[in-house]
């Protein structure tokens, strides 16, 4: 092109450069696009392998580092797997902290000994729409419909993987798997045959230790036993004063796996623990100053025993029969709680005709509880449950058919759970899912499901003094209003909350080293819990205003969850998760439900520059959060935080690690509990750890 006479040369030149640049940019983009759709394994590498002799193939160094970035989950659901290695490299010392590795989960630490964990919103100390199972044992309690995370622990090194399913999982796992299911799976005892000793400490993790020993008991039986303990220090409150939330725990357990015949295996396992928890509690009081504070000590202990028999008829048919007993006792200052659970579960999988894989099952659960309100220091009893002891039963059955419509390409999964419980009667929880694999690098799925969250014991039987509104000298003295006691009141009419969920997802591996998993969902909720005022009663001294649990609330939520893995170099992997959530409830002017952060980002880099050295960094951003509590509602500011870990293995079997947690600020607030404790910040923490396996 010839520059025009009237055109400044500079500009014309610039135009040409731009054009050239455009060409270059286009060619780069083309190469990027080609790169994106190249096969998992490069053709050169495949040819190179095929040209080698067997001798050379047996001598060549092989690497499988990219495996995680290439594997696509085949479940027609928003499933994510946290591996043992991920947990180790995150530096997490508890199950809820490890759950931050999964996209879409809202994990917030309330204080040193309490967590709020939920999926797709509705978070709380006892978040009631997330089901949690540890090796098939339900950790979700009927008492308050949720999980006491401080009670749930395993030897972290013995976790095989944690399977996180966002969205309803009720068809297989039953009620309360409304917005998600977490399956914590520990290793088979044959994989923990060495002895392992861990010890460490720091400022928040003041001291911890664990010991596991594995052994072979005969030709077909392996076993392990462990003991662990820790002491975790207190955080500070927002004014910088000590928060009084320190606690300690000691726990032990075992697992035994035996092959009875080529077709039968038996697993037997159990745990026992004791926890001492300190907390600084606030209680409402009728007399001035209308609120009292005290240092409370909680003693919690419990245990479980589980056995599972599995019989395999053929590659496509097996059944398992599982039985467990679980007990826990929480002796808290305002409430004594004990619960015993017996559970029997049967599942059978088989192939039918040529295209159906059927799985069906039946289970029965018996629960016995004792919940007693106790006196606080001023002599009042803020909580009461009537009756104080209840036996309850849940009987259920389910059937699911995975139908192959086109071999290796299209599957339809239909199923439903049918359950009867003593609190809400009969519940049906069906789901339909479809999965399409147009190519082995692409998976598309969609599903529609119904799930329910069954009533808790508290929602039907609790009476709790939650707040006192002090007397008001209005309109002018001596006229005024008396103190008002706000009393949360359970109702036998409270029934299940319900959701209909629409989900769709796409997974792909779009180069040899990058994978992407995107899920979109829309949840339509009804019969959600809302406390509505009942008739006030004046008893001469104060006005009692009951707030009765009802199912008046409706709402919807929708969002997107993205998980990516990029194996940038053989020794450097990135894990990036992003989630966006919008929650909309028809509770204008009277918010009673916590709203989870709209956005969350987790950016993790795992570097292994040498075989004996790990370097990890983990940056998290959490958007503004809204927590409701009986004292006040709190908008919790968004925060950015960083964890770092470095580990060195100087000798075979020995690892030294140094971990920094929440390093970017002295303290930050993540969540405020619904009642009793006030806002507690999470402090910066550093700990060192030594592991010796022999």
């Amino acid at each position, binding site marked *: 092109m010839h520059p025009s006479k009237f055109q400044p040369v500079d500009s014309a030149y610039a135009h040409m*450069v*731009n054009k050239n*640049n455009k060409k*270059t*940019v286009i060619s*780069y*983009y083309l*190469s*990027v696009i080609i*790169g994106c759709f*190249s*096969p*998992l*394994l*490069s053709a*050169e*590498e*495949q040819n*190179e*392998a*095929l040209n*080698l002799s*067997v*001798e050379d*193939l*047996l*001598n*060549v*160094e*092989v*690497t*499988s580092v*990219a*495996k995680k970035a*290439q*594997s*696509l989950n*085949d479940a027609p659901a928003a499933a994510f797997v946290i591996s043992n290695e991920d947990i180790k490299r995150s530096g997490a010392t508890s199950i809820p902290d490890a759950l931050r590795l999964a996209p879409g989960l809202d994990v917030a630490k309330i204080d040193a000994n309490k967590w709020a964990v939920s999926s797709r919103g509705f978070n709380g100390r006892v978040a009631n729409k997330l089901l949690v199972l540890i090796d098939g044992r339900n950790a979700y309690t009927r008492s308050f419909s949720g999980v006491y995370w401080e009670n749930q622990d395993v030897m972290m090194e013995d976790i095989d993987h944690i399977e996180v399913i966002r969205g309803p999982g009720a068809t297989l796992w039953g009620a309360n798997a409304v917005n998600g299911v977490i399956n914590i799976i520990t290793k088979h005892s044959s994989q923990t045959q060495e002895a392992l000793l861990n010890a460490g400490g720091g400022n928040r993790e003041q001291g911890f230790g664990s010991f596991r020993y594995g052994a072979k008991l005969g030709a077909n039986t392996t076993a392990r036993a462990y003991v662990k303990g820790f002491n975790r220090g207190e955080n500070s409150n927002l004014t910088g004063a000590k928060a009084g939330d320190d606690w300690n725990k000691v726990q032990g357990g075992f697992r035994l796996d035996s092959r009875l015949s080529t*077709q039968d*295996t038996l697993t037997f396992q159990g745990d026992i623990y004791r926890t001492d928890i300190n907390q600084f509690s606030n209680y409402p009081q009728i007399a001035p100053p209308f609120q009292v504070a005290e240092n409370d000590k909680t003693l919690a202990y419990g245990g479980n025993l589980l056995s599972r028999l599995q019989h*395999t*008829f*053929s*590659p*496509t048919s*097996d059944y398992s029969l599982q039985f467990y007993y679980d007990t826990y006792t929480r002796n808290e200052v305002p409430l004594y709680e004990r619960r015993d659970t017996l559970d029997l579960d049967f599942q059978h999988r088989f*192939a039918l005709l*040529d295209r159906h*894989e059927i799985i069906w099952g039946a289970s029965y659960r018996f629960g016995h509880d004792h919940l007693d309100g106790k006196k606080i220091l001023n002599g009042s009893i803020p909580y009461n449950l009537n009756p104080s002891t209840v036996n309850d039963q849940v009987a259920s059955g389910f059937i699911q058919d995975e139908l*192959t419509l086109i*071999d*290796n390409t299209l599957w339809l999964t239909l199923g439903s759970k049918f359950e009867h419980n003593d609190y809400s009667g009969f519940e049906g929880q069906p789901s339909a899912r479809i999965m399409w694999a147009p190519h*082995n*690098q692409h998976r598309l799925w969609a599903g529609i499901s119904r799930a329910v969250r069954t009533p808790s014991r508290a929602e039907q039987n609790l009476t709790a003094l939650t707040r006192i509104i002090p007397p008001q000298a209005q309109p002018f003295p001596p006229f005024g209003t008396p103190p008002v006691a706000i009393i949360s009141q359970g109702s036998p009419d409270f029934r299940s909350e319900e959701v209909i969920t629409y989900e769709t997802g796409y997974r792909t*591996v779009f180069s040899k*080293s*990058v994978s992407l998993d995107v899920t979109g969902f829309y949840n339509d909720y009804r019969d959600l819990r809302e406390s509505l005022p009942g008739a006030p009663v004046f008893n001469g001294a104060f006005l009692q205003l009951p707030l009765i649990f009802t199912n008046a609330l409706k709402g919807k939520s929708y969002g997107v969850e993205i998980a990516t893995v990029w*194996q940038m*170099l*053989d020794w450097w992997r990135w894990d990036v998760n992003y989630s966006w959530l919008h929650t909309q409830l028809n509770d204008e002017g009277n918010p009673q439900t916590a709203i989870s952060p709209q956005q969350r980002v987790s950016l993790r880099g795992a570097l292994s520059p040498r075989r004996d050295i790990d370097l990890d960094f983990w940056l998290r951003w959490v958007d503004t959060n809204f927590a409701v509590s009986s004292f006040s509602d709190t908008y919790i500011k968004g925060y950015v935080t960083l964890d770092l870990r470095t580990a060195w293995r100087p000798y075979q079997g020995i690892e030294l690690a140094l971990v920094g947690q929440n390093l970017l600020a002295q303290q930050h607030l993540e969540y405020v509990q619904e009642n009793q404790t006030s806002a507690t910040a999470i402090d910066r923490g550093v700990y060192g750890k030594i592991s010796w396996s022999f």
Partner: protein
Amino acid sequence: MNKRVKKCLPQLLGLGLLLNTHLPMLAQSLEEQTVLAALALNIVRFTTWPIDAPIKDTIDFCVIGDNVVQQSFTGIDHKAVGNKTLQIINLSRLRNFEDCHALYVSELKQNVLLQVFAEIKKRPLLTIGEGYDFAAQGGMVGLENVEGKITLHVNLTRVHESNLNISARLLKLAKIIGN
């Protein structure tokens, strides 16, 4: 300012591409699944089926594995094995093993795997899998990753029970399980 960004764009994109290990690696090491697939092809080449085995023009090689395994085996699809051609069949369901002449199992729960072996019994079906245990528990060839290199384990008893024959040249490179 805008110009500068535009000037840098190709370089930035180039850097992005460079960091993406898609560029051919200076291969001192190879992807494990690629090596396993190449070994599987070689094992088939060193195996002789009994004369009465129902083999026509193709050796049907069934594969049980995830998307990564399936992808790596497409690399050996249609390769020549003597005067026959190898044909990869991805099994999505654990049955109809009688249609396979060879079977590669990437990962299966132990209880299911044992029943797969029970179902195959003494049929002339070459079984290849991952790990020592695969061969020790009733498979024929186990490929084990021992500190970054693949070791071959061959269960000769199982091979002979099925009237298959694996060439001595390959057996020399393998660890033999049993007698």
